[in-house]
């Protein structure tokens, strides 16, 4: 019996095209996200002044929101989202097509990936919403983030309602004062 010492997955035949990704880490776990789906990368320090705390605790992974270009972005804690050990995020990835800023520990590098492999069907939990698939870089299998998987439609609606209610309450207080 002979065993191969090196093996790498064959790119899928359908939808095969290379793409540029950002490799980032949360709690020592590496993830990839399509570079084109990230609008801006900011340090958490630079965002701190612009962040507003959210009193609503119904979506535990979101504690703050930030206003950018007249748009409200909900700040998702990456550790809480992926159920990873608590870490110290230093950066926020502000997404392009979703009102989400994700707290991450570090950017590792940019990379060009030849393909995104489908997530095996054995993975049947929430990860099907988290990931677009898997990629293979430097002998590592890395999950490729689905940018729309950080908050569900229902979570966004609940956060929007809570924020509107809070703003209305503050305005009412200001008028009475």
């Amino acid at each position, binding site marked *: *019996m002979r*065993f*191969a010492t090196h*093996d*790498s*997955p*064959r790119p899928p035949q359908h939808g095969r095209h290379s793409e540029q990704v950002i490799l980032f880490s949360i709690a020592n*776990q590496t*993830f990839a996200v399509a570079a084109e789906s990230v609008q801006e990368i900011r340090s958490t320090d630079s965002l701190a002044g612009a962040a507003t705390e959210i009193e609503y605790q119904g979506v535990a992974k979101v504690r703050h929101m930030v206003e950018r270009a007249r748009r409200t972005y909900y700040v998702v804690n990456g550790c809480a989202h*992926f*159920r*990873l050990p608590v870490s110290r995020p230093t950066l926020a990835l502000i997404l392009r097509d979703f009102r989400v800023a994700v707290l991450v520990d570090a950017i590792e590098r940019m990379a060009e990936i030849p393909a995104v*492999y489908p997530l*095996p*069907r*054995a*993975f*049947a*939990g*929430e*990860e099907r919403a*988290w990931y677009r698939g*898997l990629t*293979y870089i430097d*002998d*590592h*299998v*890395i*999950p490729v983030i689905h940018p729309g998987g950080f908050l569900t439609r229902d979570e966004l609606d609940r956060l929007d309602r809570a924020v509107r209610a809070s703003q209305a309450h503050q305005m009412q207080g200001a008028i009475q004062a």
Partner: protein
Amino acid sequence: MTLPENSAPNSFVLMELGERRFALPANIVTELAPPVRLHTFPHASPLVSGVIVRRSRIVPVYDASSVLTGRQASVHRFYLIARREFAKGSELSAIPVDGECELGTGTMQPPPAGKPSYVAGVLPLGEESLDVLNFEVLVTSQPVNAATHPNSQEAQP
């Protein structure tokens, strides 16, 4: 070890997990792979421990030990790769095993009462009687705590 596509219906792959041996129908087993690197990432599928890359494919790994013995698989093991059927198509799937596997033939008997649902039957082999596993049921079972597992010594009074 690579198995022929059309194994005889009474052929079984005999594998070792913990201190027990189990049997899988040979017609769903494709190969015994070496202890290659297990890649892990966050997910919420209870029995899946990660993926391996084998023959240019990404293959999910199920920690069958946690169901069969109540203990998680150790790191340096072989992987038995079998085909799991889904409603649409099938998928190669791996389970870590403790050593080399062997091929055995025999007639499967119905499972005795009280066996877990992942036991499709028993295979008498000499003085030994091995549980024949239903792969589909096994990989969709819930992991069992070692202290409460019926095959665990910790569960003995």
